[in-house]
């Protein structure tokens, strides 16, 4: 899907994020810098509260950094307005959440169509893309099932199909296996591995599970809002 393999996709320079919880100042990120190339499969690891989810939300354009630079395909994201950020979330980024975040009382197919709805894809094409996407995660037989009729693993696979449907440059997965049993977790990771290997889709994965991180090619270890270790796992 992404032909720009090995070109620079994401560059983050001395990124900081400070939350103000009433009087208390919480520093979630203290000067993080790294880069991600097209076709990468990066695992961000670290204990809870180390700032890895905060980083993911900033990369996913759901949150803004307090200071520092974030370039996505060469564009300075922190300077964009809300409408442009919405466009990036819609077209360039597929987000997979720990809590699945599917719409309740809605069919699998409708959930997957959601990003296409906001990019004005005509109905027929929308249906076709959604079904293709659902086939990629191996759930073609479940398209008319409602969210609550699906198991946790299936819900997460629907969420991955939704992240894929608009052919994004990058998929961000925040603890995608955190709420499913270990077997479903393995299946989900195999899907990510396949997408990365066969479709050359760039993936950034947040996890604290060492087993899960072994599916990735590169690894960054976080502690207290800073990168403490960088490692190449394979290739």
């Amino acid at each position, binding site marked *: 899907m992404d032909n720009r393999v090995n070109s620079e996709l994401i560059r983050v320079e001395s990124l900081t994020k400070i939350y103000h919880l009433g009087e208390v100042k919480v520093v979630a990120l203290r000067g993080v810098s790294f880069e991600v190339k097209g076709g990468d499969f990066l695992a961000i690891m670290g204990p809870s509260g180390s700032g890895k989810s905060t980083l993911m*939300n900033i990369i*996913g354009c*759901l*949150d803004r950094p307090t200071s520092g630079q974030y370039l996505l395909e060469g564009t300075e994201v922190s300077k964009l307005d*809300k*409408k442009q950020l*919405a*466009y990036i*979330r*819609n*077209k360039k980024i597929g*987000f997979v*959440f720990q809590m699945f*975040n*599917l*719409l*309740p*009382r809605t069919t699998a197919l409708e959930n997957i169509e*959601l*990003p296409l*709805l*906001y*990019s*004005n894809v005509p109905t027929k094409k929308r249906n076709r893309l959604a079904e293709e996407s659902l086939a990629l995660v191996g759930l073609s037989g479940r398209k008319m099932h409602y969210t609550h009729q699906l198991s946790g693993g299936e819900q997460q696979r629907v969420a991955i199909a*939704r992240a894929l449907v*608009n052919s994004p440059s990058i998929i961000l997965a925040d603890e995608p296996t955190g709420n499913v049993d270990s077997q479903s977790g393995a299946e989900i990771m195999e899907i990510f591995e396949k997408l990365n290997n066969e479709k050359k889709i760039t993936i950034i994965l947040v996890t604290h599970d060492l087993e899960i991180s072994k599916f990735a090619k590169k690894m960054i270890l976080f502690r207290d809002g800073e990168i403490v270790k960088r490692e190449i796992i394979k290739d």
Partner: protein
Amino acid sequence: MNLLKTVQVALKALNKNKMRSFLTMLGIIVGVLAVVAMVSIGQGAKVSVQERISQLGSNLLFVRPGSSFRHGVHGGWGSRTTLKPEDAEAIVEECPSVEMVSPEVNTRGQVVYKNKNWNPSISGIGADILAIRGWKMDAGIFFRRGDIKGAAKFCVLGKTVAENLFSDVSPIGEIIRIRQIPFTVLGVLATRGQAGGWFDQDDVILVPYTTAQKRLLGIQHINSIVVSAVSAESMSSAEQEISELLRRRHELADYEEDDFNIRNMADIQEAVTETAGTMTILLAGIASVSLLVGGIGIMNIMLVSVTERIREIGIRLSVGARERDILMQFLVEAIVLSLTGGLIGIIAGIIGSRVISSIAGWPTMVSVASIGLAFVFSAAVGVFFGFYPARKASKLNPIDALRYE
């Protein structure tokens, strides 16, 4: 996202919460129903008042002499004796906008038939009074012109008088005594009913005005002249012509005020119609309050709905919904609710006003304007009360919305 898709999404969301959607609509339904039904009652009242007054004669003018003024003392209106039968004749002959006239001489008197007696008002009138006033005969015949000219001792009874003097015999052809003078009863007028208060329009005896002048009162003047204009439109020209004619006939100098006074039915009609209009506005105002309350209900539910669906909003934002998309989604939901409620309310209002007509017997009239107004108003309620919650939803930060528990 285009509008059609937005409407579809909104409908789907409303469909998922059928009961809540219906209860929200109920406020608007009742409000619109009240507006449509109340306005139809008001309109119905207005139209029936107008009809009744035009039955009284919307093309009628009443000429009365002015107030007398002797030795520094004013009499009441009509106390002058300047109006003469010749004035009436001149009016019908010389004023082109006037169709018919009838002089009037009014008095009261004791009326006796055998061992019964009664004290009705006695009206001396001209031969054209039936045509002018649109009165009808119940039985017998009316005066001919010759009877008027000859001051004949004939009379026509109002229904109340006939009932009081003649309980079971026909009064036609009988002799009654008015102030001791024998009169032959020619006929009985059809009933006209109460004219408001205790004034009974049927408690009257009609006699030729000449008879009233000469035999009953011994006077030369008349009390008033009833004039019918050729049409309702020519009222003001008729008034003008009569005024000029009478000033000339009464030889009034330019500095002198009129010694007569002209009133017309249109003034009265206008006043009463205005009153009915005020009532319509009042009723619509009261009903609008319930529509407003319905609107607040929508705002309340939409606010709850926004809070309840913060996660949904977060999900939509995270997959690329823009502020505008979220704003439109919730706004369209509110508008769909209020418009659907408005439509149901209009239908219920039409049915309701029919039911009121048939049960309470009030005249109602559902006007297109009131339907249009109710519809536009309910849409406006949707936009107005839907906007704040929708805006609140659209301003949410995606990450905060996703984390909301």
